[in-house]
C-alpha cells in the first residue's frame, strides 16, 4: 500500500468497509453470497489441518472482504492452502460452505490472474485439470511427470529422482503403468466431452462478462 499514490490511497480508503468488494464476491465467487453471514467465531481457523500455514484464516478472509480489501484477498495464497478436508464446513455454526468459498475465491483470483504466480497448488490444480480433461480420465503417470517438470527440465529430473523409489514401488505393485505415457486411459467420446466442457465454459464466461 505504501507505494501507491496518495490519490489511490484516498480512493482505497473511501472503499474501506464499503460493500463494493463484498458485492463483487457475491456476484462472481462460488458461495460468495455467504460471506456476509460469518460471525467471526474462528472455528474454521481452529479446524483447518493446515491452519498454521494460512496467512489469513477463512474468517479473516471474510472480514477482509467486508472491509473492502480486494487486492489483499485476491493476491493471498491463503485460499490455496485448502486441502478440501471439509472440516470447516461441518463445524461452522453458521453453516457457511467455507471450503467452497475458499475454492471459489482461489478460482476467481486465478481467473483474474491475481493469484500468486508459482503458487504450487495453483500450478498443480491447473495441471490436474488439463490432465483430466484431455482424455476425460486422469493420467496419473503424466500428472506426476508434469508436476516434476513444471519448473523446467533440470529441476524436473531432480524431483523425479527424489521420487524414484516411490515410482518404482508403485510400478512394482502394478499401481502405476509406464505405458500410460503413450496415451493411457480415457473416455471414448472425447469430442463430446470437450464440446460439453467448452459449452459450460462459454456459459460461465458470458455470465462473468455480464456481471462485470
Amino acid at each position, binding site marked *: 500500500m505504501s507505494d501507491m499514490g496518495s490519490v489511490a490511497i484516498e480512493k482505497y480508503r473511501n472503499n474501506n468497509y464499503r460493500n463494493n468488494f463484498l458485492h463483487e464476491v457475491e456476484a462472481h465467487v462460488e458461495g460468495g453470497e455467504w460471506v456476509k453471514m460469518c460471525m467471526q467465531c474462528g472455528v474454521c481457523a481452529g479446524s483447518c*489441518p*493446515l491452519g498454521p*500455514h494460512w496467512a489469513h484464516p477463512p474468517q479473516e478472509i471474510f472480514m477482509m472482504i467486508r472491509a473492502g480489501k480486494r487486492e489483499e484477498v485476491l493476491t493471498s495464497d491463503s485460499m490455496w*492452502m485448502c*486441502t*478440501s*478436508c*471439509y*472440516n470447516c*464446513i*461441518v*463445524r461452522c455454526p453458521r453453516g457457511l460452505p467455507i471450503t467452497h468459498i475458499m*475454492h*471459489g475465491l*482461489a*478460482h476467481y483470483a*486465478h*481467473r483474474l490472474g491475481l493469484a500468486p504466480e508459482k503458487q*504450487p*497448488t495453483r*500450478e*498443480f*490444480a*491447473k495441471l*490436474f*485439470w*488439463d490432465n*483430466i*480433461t484431455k482424455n*476425460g*480420465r*486422469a493420467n*496419473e503417470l503424466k*500428472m*506426476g511427470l508434469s508436476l516434476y517438470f513444471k519448473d523446467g527440465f533440470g529441476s524436473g529430473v531432480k524431483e523425479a529422482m527424489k521420487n524414484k523409489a*516411490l515410482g518404482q*514401488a*508403485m510400478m*512394482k*505393485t*502394478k*499401481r*502405476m*503403468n509406464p*505405458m*500410460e505415457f503413450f496415451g493411457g*486411459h480415457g*473416455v471414448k*467420446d472425447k469430442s*463430446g*466431452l470437450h*464440446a*460439453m*466442457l*467448452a*459449452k*459450460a*465454459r462459454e*456459459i*460461465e464466461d458470458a455470465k462473468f462478462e455480464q456481471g462485470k
Partner: protein
Amino acid sequence: MAKKEYSFYPGCSSQKGASASNLQTSVDAMCDALDIQLNEIPDWNCCSASIGYGEGGELPRIALSARNLALSEQHNPGQDLVATCAACWLATREASERLRGSDQLMAETNQALAAAGLNLEPAKPQRVRHMVEVLIEDFGFEALGEKVQKPLEGIKIASYIGCQTNRPFGIDGESFENPVYLDKLVDTLGGDTIPDYETKVQCCGGALMFSEPEKSQELVKGILEAAHDNGADMIVTPCPLCQMNTEVYQDQINAKHGTSFNMPVVYYSQLMSVAYGKSAGEAGLDGQIIKARKLENIAGK
C-alpha cells in the same frame, strides 16, 4: 438372496495400472462374496476431484459429474449410482444435489450436456451412494458377519476414515467427529479395534500431497504416529487417496523425521475379501507397497 445390482462408478484411480487398482481388485472379490453385481457406467469420465476448482469453473466441474449421472441414468436406469472413491462419490453426490436444488444450474448444465448429446432428467434423480453405505444399509453388519470364513483374529486395526468419506456428507447416521462404522466392520470381521484412535478423521493432505508435500507429510506423520502408538498392526481406510498418502510416503517421512514407520494401509474391502475366504491375490494384497503380512497369513491359511 437375490443378486443386488448397482450402477458403478469406479473412478480413475481404480483403473488397471492406476494407484488404487488393488482397491478395485478387492472390491470385485468382496462383491463376488456378497453377490453384488456392479454395472460399470459406460464411458464414465473423471469427476475432477476437489482440486479441479483451480482451473475448472463451477459449471464445467458440475458438467463432468452430470455427464456421469446422465450416462448412468441412460444405461443403468433405476439403479443407485455407487462409487468406491471418496472424491468420486463426493463430487457426484454434490453435483446431483446442487442440480436438484437449482433449476437454473440444471438448465445450464443440460445446455452443456447437449453438446455431448446427453441430457439429465431433473425429475428422477438417481441416488448417489458410497459403497460403504451399500454395505451398511443394504446388508447390515449382521449379514456381513455371516459371510466371515476366516476371522481376522489377532490383528489390531486402526480405522482411518479420513476426510471426504466423512465430510461434508458422511455415512448416514455417523458423526463427523467420531464415525464408528469402520470399527464396527473390523469388529464384525473378527479383528481388534482401536476405538480411541484419535486421528481417524484427520486430513492426510489430500491433493496437496503433490503441491505441498512437506506440509502434507507432516499431517500423515501424525496419522501414522497415532496408529503406531495405539499398537496398530495396520491401518484400514475406505479412501484411495488416504490409502496412497498414508502408505507410499512412509520412506520419505522416515528419512525426513528420523522415524521408522512401516505401517501397512489396507482397504476395508481387502479386509472383507480375506475374511470371506478370498486369496491374497484376489484381495489385492500384492498391491501393497508395505506388505500387510498378518492379513496375508490369514489369507494363506
